[in-house]
């Protein structure tokens, strides 16, 4: 689904793709990256890939700078994380089954009643 996204951009627009979830195999992942990085350039746009964990493993400082800003927005209620469902921490499996089944509009959070 990268192609239509590139097409939706104006010329010199910037496509930022993140995560790996949309691809299902090595070949499709390679094609996706080729489309993000080369396809967008051939069509006069820019493409970038971004993975939060890749960046974080390399250097935790950017997230250490950015997360307090997100928390500040949360404290001011300028963002709403839309927690749709909560489960007890040890029922992680049930929560994941619900996520896999789909249809949850919002975030699922586990909550601990432990020590």
């Amino acid at each position, binding site marked *: 689904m990268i192609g239509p996204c590139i097409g939706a951009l104006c010329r010199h627009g*910037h496509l930022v793709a993140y995560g790996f979830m949309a691809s299902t195999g090595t070949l499709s992942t390679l094609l996706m990256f080729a489309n993000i990085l080369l396809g967008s350039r051939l069509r006069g746009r820019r493409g970038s890939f971004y993975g939060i964990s890749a960046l974080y493993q390399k250097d935790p400082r950017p997230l250490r700078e950015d997360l307090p800003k997100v928390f500040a927005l949360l404290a001011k209620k300028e963002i709403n994380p*839309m927690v749709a469902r909560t489960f007890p921490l040890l029922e992680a*499996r049930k929560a994941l089954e619900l996520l896999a089944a789909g249809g949850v509009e919002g975030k699922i959070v*586990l909550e601990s009643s432990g020590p």
Partner: protein
Amino acid sequence: MTIDSRVVRAPEGAYSSAAAHDAVAPAEKPATTTFRAVMLTRKGGPKALDALEVVDLPVPEPGPGQVRVRVRATGIGSTDFMVLGGSYRYGPKLPFVPGYEIAGVVDALGTEVHGLRVGQRVAALTVYGGFGEMLVRGAEHFLPIPDGVSDRDAAAVVLNYGTAYQAIHRVAKAKAGQTALARWSRAVSISCSTGLADP
């Protein structure tokens, strides 16, 4: 030391018999020597959820520069399925406790830890460990949660909002007045992108 690196699976009932022993000689052991966790016990794959088991683990001691946190809330997301599948780049070796993003309370400090105190509420992008009641990680991973922000909300924003914030501000370097299209896969992320683009 991390919880995944020294796993001891206690048989069912071992914990309660230990507690019974404590009742006889309460001075010999601390009140809680184990904690409960949902562990990925074997290689995952499409049926990875079948490999999740509730286990008792020994409470880990924080080493130098490390912090032990009592987990209060853990976010669930699609990334968990990649971790459970066993092929995730940043996942540890089996068996381990998954759980990507947490909010919790500082429980114990190792030596050489500055800027955090016991009882403080903190959040972290743990990548693994969040499905357990406790975890130990380097102090540099924990950020204070401000008053007025619930554990639940804090745990919910680390990965999704952290990703959206960094994608907007660090990668795209979006500026006020620019037009953005967010073709995200989930409603969660749509709310992320609309709320985060302003500041």
